[in-house]
């Protein structure tokens, strides 16, 4: 056990801090989702120009070739600088790692670099109306046609589909199959006939996610990832990266929110109330433990090459803590936190999705009890 950073890691952090201080993102646009996304895209371009995207990706794919620890430091520092997550988060944190685990050499060469530069945005087309928690119930069909596959069906809750060039799409290639078998993982070009994106309005009033209607959309063989019929395994890699990969950024974001809340509590005197102090201290404790769990999780990735089921534990704790934080904010901040369009009220509403997106808390608890504790599965 050694919980210190190496001199090289400390130097990496320093260099990054200096860069972030000299290159802040522009002012955050409010109230316009598209402008907000464009802002995050510009920010990713800046990071890219500075050599700060794909910190742990190999040099040959345009990454920085640094260690996982340094990548974690990157996300921590991004958070400390109060900078946003780069626009292509799904490509950077989910798509890229999945391709690096399962993609062919040609695929890595073709797809990885434009993820880093934000030239090509990615989205994740897993969930369907009948296949949410039960992802293996996917019905979207892919049949042979020409030099590839023709895809028809419907996806739902597809975040950033409106901006995406590529979709990580899981579809059924064996019509006789049921459940996990007979699924294949595709990279679907979103810019084609046969792909229709329809925005869905959320509790926040924004439309971050969409419905995706596929009607004869085409994917060439060269864009099958991990082999025909192997889609479930590839999808699991994506999901584990989803639950673990965001951990660093999200825990730092939590820390920033908590700092803002403590500031507010100091300013209006709530910080003097014993009850509020207890709640704030509890949030502090949870946030600190999330940080430590995120660091410990890195060890697993380093040893086994991909995140383990413990990511489910962290994601569960994070979503619950974030929901506690925003609810505490309502009590501490008062009217403003329930006023339409305020950052606190947005956070309050958005946080309800945390325990649903990327696997619901109920599903995560099943994963923890079955995969970590080895309890019998529900039949």
């Amino acid at each position: 056990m050694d919980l210190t950073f190496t001199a090289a890691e400390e130097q990496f952090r320093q260099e990054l801090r200096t860069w972030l201080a000299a290159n802040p993102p522009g002012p955050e646009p409010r109230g316009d989702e598209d402008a907000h996304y464009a802002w995050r895209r510009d920010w990713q371009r800046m990071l890219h120009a500075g050599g700060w995207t794909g910190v742990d990706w190999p040099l040959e794919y345009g990454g920085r070739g640094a260690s996982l620890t340094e990548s974690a430091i990157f996300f921590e520092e991004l958070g400390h600088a109060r900078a946003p997550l780069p626009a292509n988060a799904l490509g950077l944190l989910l798509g890229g790692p999945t391709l690096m685990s399962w993609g062919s050499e040609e695929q890595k060469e073709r797809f990885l670099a434009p993820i880093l530069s934000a030239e090509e945005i990615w989205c994740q087309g897993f969930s369907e109306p009948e296949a949410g928690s039960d992802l293996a119930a996917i019905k979207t069909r892919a049949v042979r046609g020409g030099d590839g596959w023709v895809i028809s069906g419907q996806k739902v809750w597809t975040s950033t589909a409106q901006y995406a060039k590529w979709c990580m799409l899981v579809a059924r290639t064996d019509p006789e199959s049921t459940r996990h078998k007979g699924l294949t993982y595709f990279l679907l070009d979103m810019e084609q006939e046969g792909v229709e994106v329809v925005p869905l309005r959320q509790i926040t009033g924004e439309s971050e996610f969409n419905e995706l209607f596929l009607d004869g959309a085409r994917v060439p063989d060269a864009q099958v990832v991990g082999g025909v019929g192997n889609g479930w395994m590839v999808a699991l890699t994506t999901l584990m990266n989803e639950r673990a990969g965001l951990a660093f950024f999200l825990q730092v974001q939590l820390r920033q929110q908590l700092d803002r809340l403590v500031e507010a509590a100091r300013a209006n005197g709530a910080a003097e109330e014993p009850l509020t102090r207890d709640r704030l201290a509890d949030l502090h404790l949870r946030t600190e433990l999330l940080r430590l769990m995120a660091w410990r999780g890195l060890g697993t990735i380093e040893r086994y090459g991909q995140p383990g089921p413990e990511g489910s534990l962290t994601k569960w704790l994070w979503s619950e803590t974030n929901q506690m934080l925003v609810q505490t904010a309502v009590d501490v901040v008062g009217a403003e936190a329930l006023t339409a369009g305020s950052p606190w009220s947005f956070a309050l509403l958005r946080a309800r999705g945390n325990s649903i997106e990327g696997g619901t808390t109920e599903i995560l608890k099943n994963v923890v009890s079955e995969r970590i504790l080895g309890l019998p599965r529900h039949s």
Partner: protein
Amino acid sequence: MDFEFSDEQRAIRDTARELLAERRAGEGLWPELVELGWAGIGIAEENGGQGLGLVELAILAEQLGHACAETPFLGTALAALAIEAGGDAAQRERCLPALAAGERGGALTLAGRRELIPDAAAGEILVVADADGGTGELYLEAPIEPTEAIDPRRRHGLLRPDAAAGDPLPGGVAAALDRARVVVAAEILGLCRRALEETVAYVKERRQFGVPVGSFQAVKHAAAQMLRDTEMAAVATYYAAWSADFDAPSLPAAAAIAKAAAADAGRAVTAAAIQLHGGIGFTWEADVHWLFKRAQVDAAYLGGAASQRARLARLTTA
């Protein structure tokens, strides 16, 4: 001891429920409720109302919560409670018939606290109640800055910080404030009941892994917890409403218990409803988010759960 409603009370509940089920959209709902006399259900007959008790008022508030209705009922009813209790004859005469007839809007808020006030609108009637002293001030032209809350189906406002003093309500409003909290608790109770109904219906229908998601123990337990929270709010609310009418000395503690139980239930039950709906629950199209939003505003309104428990602690350890 009998918690059953009387025939007359059941009739109010059923009529309200049927009418509100038909009129989900909200258009023209308020004039219809006024027509039925419900704007003044708790206002004395001599002041133009129906002269019914707090139990009846709570029954109606619960149904309007259940429908998450777009009416200014709550503010009207709460302002009337305060003016009826604290106003002199002139103030009562000036305000109550107009409130009962739906001619003017009303609202109630606490002094010294910047809270979102449901149904508050500039120029309408407003009572500002001092929670500690039990005194109240009346504004015939409310000094309100309109503010959009997360619940856009109801009008909200904030008391303008530069507002001049209002006219004192000489009779005091301490008991009226307790009654008002019971009415808010009843509205939250309706939100909880609706959230639970929608959720139970949904998890019976929605299938994943080849079975209704309601067959998973995690979902069942969460739904059971929703019911427990809701029933806690229910007994607390109706006990307090009954106390207000028949056992005034019990009212302060009972009202604090009701508001605290309902505020906690409102937050937890409506959040659980979203959770058990999965992705659908997070959309604008599903109804559950309206319930969550109104419950959040109501939970904080006239003092949240923590302040009610603090009050209860003062009352019970004194």
